[in-house]
């Protein structure tokens, strides 16, 4: 082994740090925001049980509202769906909800509000279907040293608690539908993706 002299070692160690160019931090932040990685707090471990409960409740409420809406608006979602020819199907992925974003709002209030939203969509023939997902899952992550993150629950902002299929004329309209959902008002995230066929 060619051991380094103290002078060589010092010279090499001085090469360790290089200041990134001006503007690099801003560019990184912009890219992080574009990917939704900056600007929303990640739940602390100690909050997870509470938040999990809140999210689970919100998802259940949300889906309760959906089913309530579907029952009352079945006419718009079955036979009359043919009138939606030419529309594109989009999936709305229901993500994190912050229960603290709705202080003083009762579960009954939420059920009514979600239900009204779902009935309105259904009456327009825009709501196709919806499902609640199990709270736990597995994330296959090659960047993680174990390659897998156990329990990819809805307690993380990446976790999906449920999904809906809607019909819309274009992406902007689908986004408007998602933005109108009470889930967003209560701190939840809705991801809108077109379904390619």
């Amino acid at each position, binding site marked *: 082994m*060619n051991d380094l002299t103290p002078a060589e070692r010092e010279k090499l160690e001085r*090469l360790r740090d290089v200041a990134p160019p001006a503007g690099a931090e801003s560019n990184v932040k912009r890219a992080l925001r574009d990917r939704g990685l900056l600007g929303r707090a990640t739940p602390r471990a100690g909050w997870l049980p509470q938040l999990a409960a809140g999210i689970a409740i919100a998802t259940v409420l949300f889906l309760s509202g959906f089913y309530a809406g579907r029952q009352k608006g079945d006419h718009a979602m079955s036979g009359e769906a043919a009138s939606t020819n030419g529309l594109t199907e989009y999936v709305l992925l229901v993500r994190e909800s912050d229960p603290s974003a709705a202080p003083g709002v009762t579960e009954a209030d939420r059920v009514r509000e979600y239900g009204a939203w779902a009935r309105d969509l259904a009456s327009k023939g825009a709501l196709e279907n919806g499902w609640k997902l199990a709270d736990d899952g597995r994330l296959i992550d090659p*960047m993680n040293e174990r390659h897998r993150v156990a329990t990819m629950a809805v307690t993380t902002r990446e976790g999906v608690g449920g999904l809906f299929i809607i019909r819309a004329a274009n992406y902007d309209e689908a986004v408007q539908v998602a933005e109108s959902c009470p889930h967003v008002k209560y701190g939840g995230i809705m991801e809108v993706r077109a379904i390619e066929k």
Partner: protein
Amino acid sequence: MAVGPHATFGRRQDTHVQMNEPPRTGPVERSLVERFLEQRSDAAFSALYAHCAPRVYGLIVRQLGPLAAHADDAFQETWMRVVAALPAFAWRSSLSTWICGIAVNCCHEIQRRERRDAPDDAYEPVTGDDGRESPPFDGADRIDLERAIERLAPGYREVLLFHDVHGLRHEDIAGLLGIEPGTSKSQLSRARRALREALAPNVIPSTGPAAKESPS
């Protein structure tokens, strides 16, 4: 068997960051990460960035060497992956080492993309050293040293940077590159010798792209 110092690609396409070192993370790093994960605010990210960015950028610039024009792309992509994976970071290595591992993968992707015709024989196992001695570069100035490192064959440059510049152990380097620790040691010895030869006055350097090692 010939040592393949000119390529840094080959078997590391499926390399994962897997450190064997015990946790060496100080309270500052933990505090920065916890604050960022809690807030995800600009200010919290800036603090984390300020702590890690010079080291990460330094690693990327020097590892890419002749491809340093792509350093900004690698730097940004490194942060994207770091922030995305940070909630799952298990603190089994220091934060800096973990981030460097991600940066290494980003650099490798660029190197593979930009050098599609590169040989695929980096880090063949070698044993021992041929005993050649070169004078130390005690008197070299910084610019000459930087240029000499940049001209090192990628396989040499990488191990030298990890060990002698960034202070990683051979076990860490082996985990990062998917090689044996003994191979890392041998590569380092040869890298140091190549660097000394490049910086020695009146000696024809053996660090250029055409300077392949002869089979030993």
